[in-house]
């Protein structure tokens, strides 16, 4: 193998390995993530690739993931993309933007059955975000900047 090809192959492997596997679940599978009772503060963002205000605020969630990486803060990106668009939209989007927080595809079309279980305050519009830990729980049907997220997290995270 020519050295150049070898380097190219390594780069290709690196690229493939950095792209995360996307977990697909129905609401019952997602539910445990919405009610964990430990010291971690969970920032659960409901979004979709086709939702422009969601895509606009994604960098704020990525920054939270990066800046709080050594603290008890966990960012989860719950996608509501259509199941049939997993291969042609969601996976390419996650790869292109190299999203680091865990992406979960919530494939459960009967949303009336579970929206209230995320929060009775949620009308179903995207984007929406749940921020919680064992002492704090708040739901927001709105977009965020990094500073706004950081303020809520700093005020409520459980001090180690």
């Amino acid at each position, binding site marked *: 193998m020519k050295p150049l090809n070898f380097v190219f192959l390594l780069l290709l492997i690196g690229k493939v390995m950095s792209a995360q596997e996307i977990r697909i679940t129905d609401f019952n599978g997602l539910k445990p993530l919405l009610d964990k009772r430990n010291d971690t503060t969970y920032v659960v963002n409901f979004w979709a690739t086709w*939702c*422009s*205000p969601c895509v606009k605020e994604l960098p704020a969630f990525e920054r939270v993931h990066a800046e709080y990486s050594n603290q008890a803060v966990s960012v989860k990106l719950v996608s509501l993309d259509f199941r049939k668009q997993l291969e042609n939209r969601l996976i390419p989007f996650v790869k292109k933007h190299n999203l680091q927080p865990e992406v979960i595809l919530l494939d459960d*079309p009967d*949303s*009336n059955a579970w*929206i209230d279980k995320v929060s009775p305050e949620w009308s179903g*519009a*995207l984007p929406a975000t749940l921020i919680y830990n064992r002492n704090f729980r708040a739901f927001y*049907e709105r977009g965020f900047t990094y500073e706004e997220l950081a303020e809520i997290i700093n005020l409520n995270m459980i001090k180690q």
Partner: protein
Amino acid sequence: MKNFLLAFIFLTISGLQLSAQGVKVGDVAPEFKLKNVDGNFVSFSDFPDAKGFVVIFTCNHCPFSIAYEDRIIALDNKYKSKGYPVIAINPNDPAIVPADGFKEMKARADEKSFTFPYLFDEGQKIYPLYGATRTPHVFLISKKGKENIVAYIGAIDDNSQDEGAVKNAYLENAIKALLENKTPSPDFTKAIGCTIKTGTK
């Protein structure tokens, strides 16, 4: 007197907040007169023979709205003649979503041969009165005497992604209930949808 004044101010403010949240089932449906894609203005009074209305806040760009277009046309075809015509209203600000501009609405209505009025909520004055938050967002209205009463709020059915897999056609069942002089059950559902795009928030 000061306390009385404070109480009055408080009640006024909380009253305003309530109205900002929109209508509930049982409330009178807010009137509107909005421009249709054909250039004419449309309001409830243009349908003297209707028994009610299927008001749907929807738009061009939202994948959920697109997924429901054919189902909305089918509902209008089926229930207009029975007294429940569809009135679609685009609540989005085209300054935020150019695909939801009036010209684009016209093009989409032509392309899909919409059988119902597709109105533009110019200045975004009507959707807050209803409390619509997403597209599509349905308000089924029943005429009672001279009043238009909200009878059902929510989703079209329980599967936006696959019409063939629908188990509960909430809206159609609610229309059928009204046609039988019954109360829709459920009369309120939720669904994932696109947030209504506005520059003021």
